[in-house]
């Protein structure tokens, strides 16, 4: 299954006359980690919405390997192996940390499978492993609703680990975090990346620099510049619209 590339070509999204994405084209190779930056309103989150099936593009092609993502719903896209981490961490407050991970664990998603689901030893070990990785072993039986902001972010990252996706979309993972939390998150993301493709949307340039990978700059819904961070930072157009301000 590993080894699908993400391919966006000429994608436009128009909301009531506003072009959130304008002829956006982007290719993410299998195993590649890509940082996407851009000023507010550049279309970063809309791009993620299009890839994950939340928003239908007005025009253009979105493919993951052989699959046409524009014809699939969110659940089928998730089951293809595309995981998403939201800007605002969304975990299930009324369930325990353990149960949150259990729901995310890669397993048959049908109603009857869920009705008769029994947690096996292997699955239990996998969850325990993730719990220690995200530093929540002690709080495994706490309701997710009582977690701090940082812990919620890690739980959500843990849920992505359980999903075992091929392509991971991460929206502003360190927004609102302390320095220490940011460090922990960066380490977690590097660990997750492994052999997967990862697209990280981030405002924090230091964080992007630390990732040290190819950067795509979005502006007004289209790709303004693409390349290593130093090249991008030297691009006069980028300086004008984003970095220079």
């Amino acid at each position: 299954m590993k080894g699908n590339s993400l391919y966006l070509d000429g994608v436009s999204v128009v909301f009531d006359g506003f072009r959130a994405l304008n002829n956006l084209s982007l290719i993410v190779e299998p195993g590649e980690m890509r940082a996407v930056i851009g000023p507010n309103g550049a279309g970063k989150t809309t791009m993620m919405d299009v890839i994950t099936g939340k928003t239908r593009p007005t025009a253009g092609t979105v493919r993951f390997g052989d699959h046409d993502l524009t014809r699939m719903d969110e659940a089928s896209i998730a089951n293809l192996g595309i995981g998403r981490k939201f800007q605002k961490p969304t975990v299930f407050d009324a369930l325990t940390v353990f149960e949150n991970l259990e729901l995310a664990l890669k397993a048959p998603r049908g109603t009857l499978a869920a009705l008769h689901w029994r947690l096996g030893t292997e699955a239990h070990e996998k969850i325990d492993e993730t719990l220690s990785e995200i530093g929540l072993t002690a709080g495994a039986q706490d309701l997710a609703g009582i977690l701090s902001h940082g812990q919620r972010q890690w739980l959500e990252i843990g849920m992505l680990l359980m999903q075992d996706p091929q392509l991971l979309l991460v929206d502003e993972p360190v927004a609102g975090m302390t320095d220490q939390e940011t460090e922990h998150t960066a380490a977690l993301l590097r660990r997750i990346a492994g052999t997967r493709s990862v697209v990280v949307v981030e405002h924090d340039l230091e964080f992007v620099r630390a990732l040290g990978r190819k950067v795509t700059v979005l502006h007004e819904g289209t790709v303004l510049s693409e390349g290593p961070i130093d090249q991008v930072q030297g691009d006069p157009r980028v300086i004008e619209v984003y970095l220079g301000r």
Partner: protein
Amino acid sequence: MAPRRRPYTTAALGAALLLLALVPVLNGLPDTHALHVSDFIVSIVGKWICYAILALAIDIAWGYAGILSLGHGAFFALGGYAMGMHLMRRIGDRGVYGHPVLPDFMVFLGYPELPWYWLGFDNFPFAMAMALLVPGALAGLVGWLAFRSRITGVYFSIITQAMTYALMLAFFRNDMGFGGNNGFTDFKDLLGVPLNTRAARAGLFYAALVSLALCLLICAYVVKSKLGRVLVAVRDAESRVRFLGYNVTSYKLFVFVLSAMISGLAGALYVPLVGIINPGEFSPGNSIEAVIWVAVGGRGTLGGALLGAFSVNAVKTWLTSFAPDFWPFVLGGLFVAVTLFLPKGLVGLLRRRGG
């Protein structure tokens, strides 16, 4: 994996069901005995048991999956009508007009023969199956159309309210073949036992009680399974569940159809106990009242649904015996008070008291 066990709740529920089982026994004591309970108490508590089954059904959809249906009375009434049709067929030639096949109202309205959709209802297992399948099929259709289009929250509530209202208007019509505004009554017997006897009342009471226990077990199995946890997740963050790869529509459909079938069962048990079914059972107010039971008891806990159904109906029976005009105000006030001061219902209050 059930990290939050509540052994006391289970014990309390079991004890309550056992206590209820004593009611027909006490009814069998001689009238002069201090512990004797009247026939009236047996039928009224039997009715509350049927209401408790309906409350369970509403709770698994609303309390766990966040699907607030304001039309569950329709599923209850459809189950009741299926049972009513069976009871009408069992009257046979003992009706006022003495027709061997046609129920009285059909003779009166000049039906030449039994409409096709009445065929088979003389058979008890068939009628019981219909009491579950017809509400289930209706819920499947309405749910599929609504959930697929991602109609949620108050919009869904309004659709279900309209559904029960439309069914009420339809069942009021004489040419629907369901007895119009008179509905069905004057039942004679069920499974060979004459109704309106002490034995029949006890039998119906125990049938309802056993059904309640079974529904409780089924609902507990569902909500304690991973499916139950997916439903809670859907209730709290529906779109997030989709991004985990779950087909939310099929999960919601599953619980909504199950809930409708349990409601149908409740209605089928209710009709022989009260001896009548008419289109008034579809009235939107009934559905809203049933939702209030669950809110008062505490939604999202199975025990809460039962507690709410019994306590609100006990108050209703007591109050309407001397001031029936007051009831709508009390009911409305109760809903406002619970929403404002007791969002977790009586169960929340008990838990707080219990530490």
